[in-house]
């Protein structure tokens, strides 16, 4: 269950040291924008040593890579793939070919180190107009692709639009990336909310993203993690309703009924599927067992 992904600058020992104390489901150890070009070598070695020795207990590890058209990406992959992070995050992904090139390097490194090919997955960061338009092909480009992630700051620059808190300028991109990811049956993550001091704005933004179908949301500040986790966790009301749905379905099966209603509304397959997902998420988060087959 991955609701939050917290960015940690790859060349900051203090932040790496505390990366796993913020209750984020995943941490993104950043070798890209958070690291100055002259410090790329230092960040790579520091991230490697941190993954090796700090462990990051209870937190999934994702490493954000430098773009494919830079001299850094091969060294990034040579350094991090042997440590088997859950996912690596290629950046500014423009099309399926980009993913296939990254995956080919990953395969070379995995084979060199005796790691089963495909062990490390990919979460593709889409942050250009071209990337958004090719979202479905990117999601289907390689078996390693486990998720898509929207990067709104670079995208709005590419769109020649102003980035606003309301986010009208990224509405199409949000809808498009969710549609593509769901069609390809991979997870999908929303862009971070960048105002560190606007808690109310953060919750609204996260609620909106959840409503669109996002799996979770990235965070650039540890302060944002709790609010995002809350939004993307099933509420007590949702869990109670899901249990009711599963109970009436069980009852209907016993009675041999085809159609069944709950609180005056018909319960059909999409409602049952949603209830099942809520209960699975609740079980994964320890918010209540999943009692139905």
């Amino acid at each position, binding site marked *: 269950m991955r609701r939050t992904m917290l960015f940690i600058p790859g060349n900051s*020992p203090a932040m790496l040291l505390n990366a796993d104390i913020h209750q984020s489901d995943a941490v993104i150890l950043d070798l890209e924008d958070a690291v100055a070009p002259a410090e790329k070598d230092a960040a790579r070695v520091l991230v490697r040593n*941190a993954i090796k020795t700090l462990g990051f207990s209870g937190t999934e590890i994702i490493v954000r890579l430098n773009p494919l058209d830079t001299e850094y990406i091969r060294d990034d992959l040579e350094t991090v793939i042997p440590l088997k992070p859950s996912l690596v995050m290629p950046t500014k992904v423009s099309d399926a070919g980009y993913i296939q090139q990254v995956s080919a390097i990953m395969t070379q490194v995995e084979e060199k180190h005796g790691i089963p090919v495909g062990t490390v997955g990919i979460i593709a960061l889409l942050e250009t107009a071209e990337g958004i338009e090719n979202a479905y092909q990117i999601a289907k480009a390689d078996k390693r692709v486990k998720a898509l992630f929207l990067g709104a700051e670079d995208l709005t620059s590419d769109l020649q639009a102003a980035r606003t808190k309301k986010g009208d300028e990224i509405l199409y991109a949000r809808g498009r990336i969710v549609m593509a990811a769901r069609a390809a049956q991979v997870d999908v993550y929303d862009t971070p909310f960048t105002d560190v001091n606007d808690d109310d704005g953060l919750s609204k933004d996260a609620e909106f993203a959840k409503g669109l179908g996002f799996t979770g949301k990235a965070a650039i500040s540890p302060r944002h993690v709790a609010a995002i986790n809350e939004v993307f966790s099933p509420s007590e009301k949702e869990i109670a309703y899901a249990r009711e749905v599963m109970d009436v379905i069980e009852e209907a099966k016993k009675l041999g009924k085809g159609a069944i209603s709950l609180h005056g509304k018909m319960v059909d397959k999409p409602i049952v599927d949603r209830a099942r997902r809520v209960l699975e998420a609740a079980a994964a988060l320890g918010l209540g067992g999943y009692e139905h087959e």
Partner: protein
Amino acid sequence: MNIVRLAVAGTLESNDVLVSVAPGEGRVEIEVESIVLDQFGENIRQAAQEVIGEIGITSAKVRLEDRGALDCTVKARVETALRRAGEAQK
């Protein structure tokens, strides 16, 4: 690898260490300055020595200005400084 130039890595921020490397005079000299020198000075020196040995350096001057770095940070900064200062042997 031979150390052929001056190089630094790291910072003086909390939890980090600033490592300076210079060509040596036929041996490895390690100098440690730390806010926790009495408690961890020897550990820091050993961590640095370990990396210097792994890379195969036999002559260098290495100075560490520690601000409470963990072993994994000390090793990372020493490795980066050595590689920046070094040149592969032919």
